[in-house]
């Protein structure tokens, strides 16, 4: 009696998965009529009775109950009629047919059936590995039933035995929305696919050179390709490429870093474009661009390059134009822009040359940016790598985070540059002076903080240190004034007065300031003089100390600097 399919399913569900199978879930699973499903359950149960592990049935009995409940409705009515004169007596006994549907455990089936005056039907409702303690357990299988019903649609109802009314209508609007929903979902899928595909392409890379080429081509091509390939690959490829892509990238990162020096610079070439060129052109753009690059989306970067050359355009066009136009227009402009910066950067040109390995079109662009970038700092390497990764992995979150963390320093650099430019107006090239003056400082320090503070700090430091020391040495009166920060100015004047006493202190100042104002060229000599003066006093070790003390007051001195100069 039991079909093989039902047998298999029931065996699996009841004995292996130890779950409750109702006639409903069985019918949905096998696509058979509920009545057939009930029969299947019965047959399976009867077959399993004599086995070691019988399936425990739960029955459903429906039938008519002696119309005992007719009582309550009638008796009060009698009261009513007696009491209320207006009520009509004509209401005869109101017979209400009461039927009952009872879910019965097998143990009490006989007792339950005794309650019925007439039994319509008995059938096995469900089979379970053990006795059902809680009737609510039958609802557990409802989930699958719902799923099947929803997926198979109303046409399926007639097969299963679900009686659907012809007057049931679905809401037109609901259908629309439901139809729209998958569309939206599909669109979102597309974006996901793009992101997934891009990593998948570069993944196979073995040589570092390829990623650089692909990094660009993939970002450009990927968009063009994705639009076409979206349709092609929508199905299974997604997940696998994902995982592999990520893994490969992590490897790629390490490779890149390892091989950093030469080929890393080549990679740098691509990166620097978006972030750096703007810095050269306009300082104000820098923060925004860095943030955009942080987002690690290929589009913004591409846009950056575009903005330099031509106005923003559509993504696909961008790719095409880039190769053609950029070398002609943008390059020149960039080069022009770059040149003023070059003198500053000068040191790192060697790295840039390494990047030349790339294709011509890219090369030129890359080179121009690369120089600047590379020139600015060697520490930028990580940054460039980050942006490269960003280009390849558009949506990868990790890349984004990493880039931000590491991008902080570049911002500082930018600010430095801006500050430097501003300060240049006032005091020709102060930073070099500071660097020269503080031989102790490594090149790295100015990169991080010192540069900012150094220009402000160093100049005042030198002055302050000189003042204080002299005051201490020479006179006590100035001490009190010297300690008061507000009176510093006056003390400073007093120092000038002291100049008469001690010439060496005043000389450096006067020369330095005068040099700054009058001649930007005299930077080095003044610096040398300062260093020469500072050394004899404090010796080599003393240099840092004045800095520390100078930090506090340095800013103020800087502030008052111009006044002095006026004087």
């Amino acid at each position: 009696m039991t079909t093989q399919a039902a047998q298999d399913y029931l065996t699996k569900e009841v004995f292996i998965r130890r779950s409750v199978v109702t006639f409903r879930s069985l019918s949905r699973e096998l696509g058979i009529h509920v009545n057939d499903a009930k029969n299947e359950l019965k047959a399976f149960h009867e077959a399993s009775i004599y086995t070691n592990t019988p399936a425990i049935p739960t029955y459903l009995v429906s039938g008519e109950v002696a119309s005992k409940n007719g009582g309550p409705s009638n008796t009060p009515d009698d009261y009513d009629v007696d009491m209320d004169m207006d009520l009509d007596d004509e209401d005869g006994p109101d017979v209400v047919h009461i039927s009952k549907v009872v879910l019965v455990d097998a143990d009490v089936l006989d007792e339950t059936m005794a309650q019925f005056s007439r039994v319509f039907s008995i059938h096995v409702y469900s089979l379970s590995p053990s006795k059902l303690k809680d009737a609510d357990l039958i609802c557990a299988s409802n989930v699958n039933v719902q799923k099947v019903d929803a997926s198979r649609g109303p046409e399926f109802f007639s097969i299963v035995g679900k009686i659907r009314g012809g007057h049931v209508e679905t809401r037109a609007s609901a259908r629309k929305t439901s139809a729209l929903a998958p569309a939206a979902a599909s669109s979102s899928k597309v974006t996901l696919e793009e992101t997934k595909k891009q990593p998948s392409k570069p993944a196979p890379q073995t040589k570092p050179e390829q990623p650089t080429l692909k990094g660009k081509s993939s970002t450009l091509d990927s968009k063009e390709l994705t639009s076409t390939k979206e349709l092609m690959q929508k199905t299974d490829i997604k997940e696998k490429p994902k995982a592999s892509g990520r893994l490969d990238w992590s490897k790629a990162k390490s490779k890149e870093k390892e091989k950093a020096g030469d080929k890393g610079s080549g990679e740098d070439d691509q990166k620097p474009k978006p972030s750096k060129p703007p810095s050269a052109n306009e300082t104000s753009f820098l923060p925004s661009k860095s943030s955009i690059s942080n987002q690690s989306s290929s589009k913004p970067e591409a846009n950056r390059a575009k903005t330099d050359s031509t106005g923003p355009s559509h993504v696909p066009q961008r790719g095409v134009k880039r190769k053609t136009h950029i070398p002609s227009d943008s390059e020149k402009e960039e080069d022009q822009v770059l040149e003023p910066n070059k003198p500053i950067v000068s040191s790192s040109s060697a790295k840039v040359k390494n990047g030349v390995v790339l294709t011509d079109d890219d090369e030129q662009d890359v080179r121009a940016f690369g120089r600047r970038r590379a020139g600015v700092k060697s520490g930028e390497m990580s940054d460039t790598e980050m942006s490269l990764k960003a280009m390849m992995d558009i949506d990868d979150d990790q890349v984004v985070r990493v880039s931000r963390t590491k991008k902080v320093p570049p911002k500082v650099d930018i600010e430095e540059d801006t500050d430097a430019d501003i300060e240049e107006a006032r005091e020709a090239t102060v930073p070099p002076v500071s660097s020269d003056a503080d031989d102790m400082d490594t090149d790295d320090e100015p990169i991080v903080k010192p540069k900012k503070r150094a220009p402000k700090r160093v100049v005042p430091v030198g002055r302050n240190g000189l003042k204080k020391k002299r005051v201490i040495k020479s006179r006590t009166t100035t001490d009190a004034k010297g300690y008061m920060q507000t009176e510093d100015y006056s003390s400073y004047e007093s120092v000038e007065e002291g100049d008469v006493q001690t010439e060496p202190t005043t000389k450096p100042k006067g020369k330095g300031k005068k040099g700054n104002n009058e001649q930007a060229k005299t930077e080095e000599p003044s610096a040398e003089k300062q260093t020469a003066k500072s050394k004899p006093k404090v010796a080599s070790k003393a240099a840092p100390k004045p800095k520390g003390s100078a930090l506090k007051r340095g800013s103020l001195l800087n502030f008052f600097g111009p006044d002095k100069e006026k004087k």
Partner: protein
Amino acid sequence: MSSTSAVAALPSHLQLTRCTSSLLPQTLTSPSFIIDTKNKSYRHQYSNMYFTRLAMLKQPVMDRASAKWKDLPGKPVFVRRVLDVVKSQLCWIIGTVYMDMPLKPNVLEDLGRDYSIPPPPPREKFHSEDDAVMLEDESGRVKLVGERLHSTRLVTGVIIAALGMETASGDFEVADICYPELAPFKEASLFGDDVDIMDVDGSSSAKDEYLAIVSGLSMGDPSSGEAQVQMLVEYLAGETGGPDDQKLASQVTRLIIAGNLFSRVWTDNGDEGDENRPRKYGSAAQAKFSTHPNVTLSVHLEDLASVLPVHVLPGGDDPAGVILPQQPFPLAMFGKAAEFETFRCETNPVWLRVECGRKSKSAMPMGTKSSTSSSRSVPLIRSVLVTSGQPVLDMYQYLPSPPSTHLSIACSSLKWRHLAPTAPDTLWCHPFRERDPFVLGETPDLYIVGCMPEFSTQLVGGESKDGKMSRKCRVVLVPNFSETGCLVLVNLRTLAVRCVNFAVAGMVAGGTNSSEEQASDMQEG
């Protein structure tokens, strides 16, 4: 094992088609309980409702009273204003009943209450021996006294005519009382003969359309079992039982859920003093495998809505406004069930016009053969009035319980021609300004009251003018499903009523009724 042998094989592939019924648009005369934005103001005084109610019902009462008392000796005269009653002269007056009940909740008492003491639990009944009946109209109020009142059960807000005379003390000694009685039926009886035949003979004809009503599913109530709900759904879908059950299920054309879909969201045990603290939503369902009653309910509703039209009314325990024309649930509450055009959220008191047996319908092309219309080609329109029971439960508090039952009150309500006479007094209701939608200008064929403690039904017939029995209104009190597992089926043609009880025996289920306990006892014994 003898029992298992009783399990007979079921006929396979029993093809049944569900009977259909269509919902007709409301007529202009039937009041709408939708409160639109224009009327959403709460500024108006409730006195407007009393005025409009009296104005609306005065004429019917006057007609009936004058006809009833015109032949009385003594020629009682109608006094238009209550205060114009002349002493010791037989007359009759019309006005609104006001029950002055000392136990009735009083706002002033509430305000003056000592708040350091927890409020006394609400009384089951306001009724006491000290109750006084007043009759008031625009002019004033007069106290009614007399033996007649003892046998008459009145509640606040009813419009009556009282025959009697003023006593020396200024009270009005009542000799007789006249109600508006049943309003004319809403739907014209198309076939008078049919109406006579419709009487319940037990053997309902083969393919009559049924209307299913269930109430008080109380989803989320830990004491209510979901198993019964599951069985209910399967039964209505026509999957449960044998051919008989399935055939009956196929005749159910639509389902009305009359209130209390959800259980009350605060705990009832006030011992901890946190009875008013709302329970965390979903915590009630902790014991179950669903954490969210609404989700669970939506799944069932979707199952139901996919097979037959469903009307859902909010009830007193539901997350809806308590003010009486309860507005429909937002459709979005019910997830996928809302995708069905035929899943409708209704106002709490709602009028439905159901037509069954119409031949040509737009929904027919599904392939369902309209065997009903062919066998009984008589299209029939039934007007159905459904409430979730708050008016009846409120009126129940006014009346002494031995004589009065929920059923008698519901029937009286029809005769008073008012759905919720206690509405502004003790039943919260919207301050309508120019109308009183609860006035029953027409009598429905089927008056369904949900959320009742027990099932009962009665036919209420109007007095025939020509001595012949006229149509009757079927009053059905639908009990809470969570407590009784009761599904009520009403034959739309004959107005016969069937009950289907869903129960669980031999195992633990949330809602246990007596029979289950018996069964379990028997099992243990």
